[in-house]
């Protein structure tokens, strides 16, 4: 076999193994919330109800993807000294656009989430991914990285949302799941389940995140520190 022949590097496929890893890694091995410990604040605030958690996760994913793409396209012309401000302006503009669009086309949802949508700006995942990934990579991998991290954030939010809404309010996505007759109240003293009011408060959400991290680390050997 001739060794002089220089093989042309094959063009990397859109979903090559490396690119697929950009999506799957943040779901577990480098999850933004439980491993990178980013975006904890909003994970505690918006997970009282599954619906809020879902729309928040979708909005964050959209902003992460768009922010990553824009910054990746601009990565060669952004002056290094003001790059953080530039990221901030881009992310803030995207969040305003998302907020305004929700208000114009899905008014009901935006009414429920108005404060939280504004808070996407403060979500560390977005700035963190731009700074750590988009500024050094091409647009397509940046899209995948944004998508992966958005989904990784979404998984944690949805898990917390399901647990908190189910045990805190007996509902899922606003629909009664635990029958009213099971739930103890003044009017229904025969109910055997007392709604856990503690679980809908933010401190309990932090404990649930802790439990999530514990279970994740126990199952995923890569995360066990020596």
């Amino acid at each position, binding site marked *: 076999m001739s060794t002089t022949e220089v093989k042309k590097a094959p063009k990397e496929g859109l979903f090559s193994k490396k690119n697929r890893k950009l999506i799957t890694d943040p779901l577990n091995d480098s999850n933004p919330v439980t491993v990178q410990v980013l975006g904890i604040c909003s994970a505690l605030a918006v997970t009282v109800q599954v619906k809020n958690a879902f729309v928040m996760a979708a909005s964050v994913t959209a902003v992460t993807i768009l922010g990553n793409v824009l910054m990746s396209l601009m990565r060669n012309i952004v*002056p290094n000294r003001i790059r953080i401000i*530039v990221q901030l*302006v881009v992310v803030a*503009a995207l969040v305003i656009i998302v907020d305004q669009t929700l*208000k*114009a086309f899905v008014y009901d949802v935006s009414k429920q989430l108005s*404060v939280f949508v504004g808070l996407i700006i403060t979500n560390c995942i977005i700035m963190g991914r731009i700074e750590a990934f988009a500024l050094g990579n091409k647009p397509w991998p940046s899209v995948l990285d944004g998508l992966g991290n958005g989904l990784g954030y979404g998984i944690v939010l949805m898990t917390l949302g399901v647990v908190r809404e189910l045990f805190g309010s007996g509902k899922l996505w606003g629909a009664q799941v635990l029958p009213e007759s099971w739930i103890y109240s003044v009017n229904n003293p025969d109910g055997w389940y007392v709604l856990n009011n503690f679980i809908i408060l933010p401190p309990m959400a932090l404990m649930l995140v802790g439990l999530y991290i514990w279970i994740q680390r126990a199952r995923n050997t890569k995360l066990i520190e020596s």
Partner: protein
Amino acid sequence: MNKDSNAYTIIFAFVMCVVVGTALVLVAQLLKPFQDANILNDKKQNILAALQIKTDLKGAEAKFNEHVKEAIILNAKGEAIDPATLGGDPIKAALDINALTEFKDKKPEERKYPLFVCEKESKTYFVMPVGGLGLWAGIWGYVSVEADMNTVAGASFDHKSETPGLGAEITTDFFEGQFPGKKLNDETGNFVSIRVVKPGTPQTEHTVDGISGGTFTSKGVDEMLTRCLSVYSVYFKSMSNSVTATN
């Protein structure tokens, strides 16, 4: 050009601000008509909800035109303002009044109180907007009474940023559903209002249960109802007096 020079940095920052600013202005202007329509329809939807008429955002306008017959605007003393001074359609003028900004931005004696006269199944109802403060920001709502100007027919509430799952529960059927059948006045005809009390307190026809964990929001609803409804009660009293007088 040197990417690290001061000139490049300043020019870059300037261009970026202009581009982003222009983009945001364009988006805001393009979406504004949609947003304004949503806000108006949302208001109509809430007024209808106080009449126990369920509708979605799109159907709100037609139903509103069908049920709302007339609007009267009261001053802070509970006297009707001459419709001729309102300029144009009183219903539109009444819709333009925002109970929350009246409360937040105006002195008590300058506030205006719109009253919607509605008809459902050929019965007359009055819908009263109310506005006040919850825990984090404004809360507002609509309370409807039957033709006797005393029995509550329904109520709907909304909020800007109360805590989901806690204070925000004032918008749920559980809370709003307690209002129908409650009375504004006691047996002698004196105004009592509807009080929001601690959950579990024995109920009278003047009280509803507050939200567990949403104490401040519940207190805000209580304060808002008493303050706003007292103005309407003055008008109702003068109306029922004039009815007895003409009889």
